């Protein structure tokens, strides 16, 4: 038996510990009524101890936990199923002023004079949460900035590449060094001209991308007959097909089908799909364009007889500035923006751009435009 003053000493120490603790300590009885609270608990919840003692601990919880709490204790006492006991967890508390805040709660069980009691240790983590949230936000901004920087660096690189041949060609021509060599001069003029065009296309694509990203792309939706739209797409791109000696052929397309689209924007998508099909097809092959009615609307199909898209590249095909990694395709030209823009345009029409590609069967791109209700845009008229 310790001596009485030793007992007092021990009690004083325990009391001092409880009273100076940063964490709140609350004990409740098996009916959920509060038996003791330490000063930290008073501070955290904003109550005086006399406002708490003998009251149901559920008053410190927000709905719906407040209503469910009596059930927990009962459930535990009858079935032994633990929700929080022995398991530290993050929960929400409610302060006297109604504020709801995140806290960590650890509950342990004890037996005092044969009666089951529970001790809850409560840590207010709202500040930590706040810091974490701020940190996440800052990291998100850094990440966004990095993506923007990378984009600008890539754009600068892509613009400088055609500009390099243009400027060098013109500088050489202007110097007069080739006055006696009409053949080389002609080559340089061609190079300058071709690359100016490439530069222009690139600038248009970059403008499109920036409009898409800032959601400033304008769409003028009108209803147009699908068949004549596809015919126009083919005739507009014929020159391109000729360049690669690929023939565009209009296959099946029921006459009655119409689409509700911005014709210019959707034509841009068709041009990219048709130019891709031509670029990546062997000479003297055909590219089939067709359309069909589907369960949900209309599907436009562009099918080529090329080598397909390499499987490992397929997941990246819609990313910006991505091209299948082969020098042969680099030589073919393009910047890898076409499909990214096309997808954004189709999705703006609430449609879907997808593909199916294999070495054996070539590549098929699908534009799926959904049918909407009577008032909606993407109708199929009978």
């Amino acid at each position, binding site marked *: 038996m310790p001596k009485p003053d030793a007992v007092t000493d021990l009690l004083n120490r325990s009391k001092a510990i409880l009273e100076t603790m940063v964490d709140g300590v609350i004990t409740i009885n098996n009916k959920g009524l509060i038996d003791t609270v330490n000063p930290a608990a008073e501070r955290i919840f904003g109550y005086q101890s006399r406002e708490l003692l003998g009251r149901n601990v559920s008053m410190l919880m927000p709905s719906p936990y407040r209503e469910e709490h009596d059930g927990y204790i009962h459930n535990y006492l009858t079935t032994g199923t633990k929700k929080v006991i022995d398991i530290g967890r993050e929960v929400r508390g409610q302060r006297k002023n109604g504020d709801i805040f995140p806290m960590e709660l650890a509950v342990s069980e004890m037996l005092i004079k044969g009666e089951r009691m529970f001790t809850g240790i409560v840590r207010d983590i709202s500040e930590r949460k706040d810091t974490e949230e701020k940190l996440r936000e800052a990291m998100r901004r850094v990440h966004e900035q990095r993506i923007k920087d990378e984009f600008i660096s890539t754009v*600068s690189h892509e613009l400088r590449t*055609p500009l*390099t041949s*243009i400027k*060098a060609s013109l500088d*050489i021509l202007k*110097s007069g*060094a080739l006055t006696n060599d009409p053949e080389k001069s002609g080559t340089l003029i061609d*190079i300058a001209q071709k690359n100016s065009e490439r530069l222009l296309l690139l600038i248009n694509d970059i403008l499109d991308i920036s409009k898409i990203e800032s959601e400033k792309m304008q769409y003028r939706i009108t209803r147009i007959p699908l068949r004549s739209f596809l015919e126009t797409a083919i005739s507009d791109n014929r020159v391109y097909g000729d360049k690669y000696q690929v023939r565009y052929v209009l296959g099946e397309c029921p006459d009655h089908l119409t689409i509700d689209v911005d014709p210019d924007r959707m034509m841009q998508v068709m041009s990219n799909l048709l130019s891709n099909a031509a670029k990546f097809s062997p000479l003297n092959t055909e590219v089939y364009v067709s359309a069909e009615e589907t369960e949900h609307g209309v599907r436009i199909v562009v099918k080529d007889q090329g080598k397909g898209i390499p499987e490992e590249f397929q997941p990246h095909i819609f990313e910006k500035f991505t091209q299948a990694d082969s*020098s042969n395709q680099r030589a073919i030209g393009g910047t890898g923006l076409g499909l990214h823009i096309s997808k954004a345009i189709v999705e703006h029409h609430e449609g879907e751009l997808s593909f199916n590609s294999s070495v054996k069967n070539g590549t098929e791109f699908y534009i799926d435009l959904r049918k909407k209700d009577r008032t909606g845009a993407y109708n199929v008229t009978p």
Partner: protein
Amino acid sequence: MSHHESLERVLYIEDEEDIRIVADIALKTIGGLDTRCCASGPEGLAALETFPAQLILLDVMMPGMDGPSVLSEIRNNEQYQNTPVVFITAKVQADEVDQLLSLGANAVISKPFEPMDMAQKLRDIWEDFHRA
């Protein structure tokens, strides 16, 4: 001043065909250098076996094997490990240039380049290299 041969043979590895054509005119026709142009890293490394380049001009972004990979192949080749290598690139921001120099390139030329001064620029780099 140390005695060394003057710069005559340059190998240029570049995937953009049009840039190869203009650079070839700039270096060979205008600059009087014996220039060999190749479209890819592997092609350029193969050319080195028969074409004893004194200086190698190297594009950075190329599909397949990029410029830095070509550089490290060159540095691993006994015959060329000390050959000056000059990157020529459209990545021109200071940190990008520093990064390329840190890989062991002797100089970085940015695109667009000056075609009329290009050969002289390479000769200057060549002289600096021998003075160092």
